[in-house]
């Protein structure tokens, strides 16, 4: 093929039609709290691991809902389960159980 010196760039747009409902429902069965997050970011702000690395439950939840499973996992693998987020969450989401199960269902 002729080399043009440039290529098609893939779009960064997320297509929600392609969202994997099955996996997500599995997660919902174990920890329905994921639905009630209002993305206030308190968890991320207080996160012990967040001080050193890209850990953010808030982002992970959003990425997951946008079908970016790998991205979500990467935002959580630094978690030390210390539980600060559970305490600051205004919606009292059971964050540790959520994190643990997201990693269980979506990693590798």
């Amino acid at each position, binding site marked *: 093929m002729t080399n043009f010196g440039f290529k098609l760039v893939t779009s960064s747009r997320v297509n929600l039609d392609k969202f994997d409902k099955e996996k997500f429902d599995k997660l919902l069965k174990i920890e329905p709290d994921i*639905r009630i997050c209002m993305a206030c970011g308190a968890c991320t702000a207080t996160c012990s691991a967040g001080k050193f690395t890209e850990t953010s439950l808030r*982002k992970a939840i959003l*990425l997951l809902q946008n079908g970016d499973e790998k991205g979500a996992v990467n935002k959580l693998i630094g978690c030390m389960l210390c539980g600060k987020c559970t305490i600051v969450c205004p919606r009292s989401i059971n964050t540790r159980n959520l994190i643990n199960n997201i990693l269980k269902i979506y990693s590798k």
Partner: protein
Amino acid sequence: MNNNKNILIIGGGPAGLEAAIQLQKLNYNIILIEKSDHLGGHLAEWDRLFPDGVKTKEILDKLVNNLVGVKYFLNTEIDSINLLNGSYNAILSNGITILAKAVLIASGFDLFKAERKQEYGYGVYNHVISNADLESYFKDGKDQRVVKNPRRVGFVHCVGSRDEKVGNIHCSKVCCVTAVKQACEIKEKFPDAEVFCFYIDLRMFGRGYEDLYLKAQQKYGIRFIRGRVSEVAENIKNELIIKAEDTLSGKPIQVTLDLLVLMSGMMNSKSGLELGEMLSLNKKEDGFFECKSSIYSQQFSNKKGIFYAGTCTGPKTLPDTFHEARSAAMEINTYMNESNKE
């Protein structure tokens, strides 16, 4: 009859009706005029009310039943009105002339015309409807634009509100919670549908609103996406393809919908504005009438003997409107007593 007891109420919506009822109790002669062919204003087109889904009919029946003895004309507008030694002399479109000591303007609001936001394709695409359309669908289930068992339904908040492009920088206050209410109702009607709400800010300011929001997430699994829908298109199957950004994850998103509901905001009503011209009433930049004081005396206009109630002075919830109607009645009563003493 005694003109000193005449009060002209303009607008047969919740504000007008409630004020009429209260003033009637104080033995004034009320003349209420309504431009449309029915009482109740927008309330009559709505199905259920936030936050707890009360049927509008209950409220409406209450109002109309308590209306006994109030003279009202439907399909009637003001042709001309002017001050005539201390009273307002109004000539109605049905030929009748009224001399009233006080005039209560309860002319209410017009819903923003969704088609003005062309990128959303209201009136152009087959499955784009407005919040009002959805309410009437909930009432009679007739609207053909709503497909059977939609897979995905979207709600666009702030259509014609907080939008300089259409000249409305103001927030219409009630659309957020209305959207959440309607989203829940959609899920009740179509449990398998995925529902998305596209918002700029969620303004759950009222009592019970936040609970409704939580319920929408928890019970109905409605997805709230912070980001304004930028464009809507139709694919070859006549489904809607909408583009927005999930600003919280900073990702542009696209989703195919079977139904898109536009949350049209509130604007001062056209007829109200015309009346404002006739009486040279002050407006604010948002197009709604200016109250004498935005904090203390909301019921007073810049003209003696002319009072306001309801959404003609800015977007309001129904409870707000009823409070205003009642306090307007009180103010008018005081005004009548004083001016009759003179």
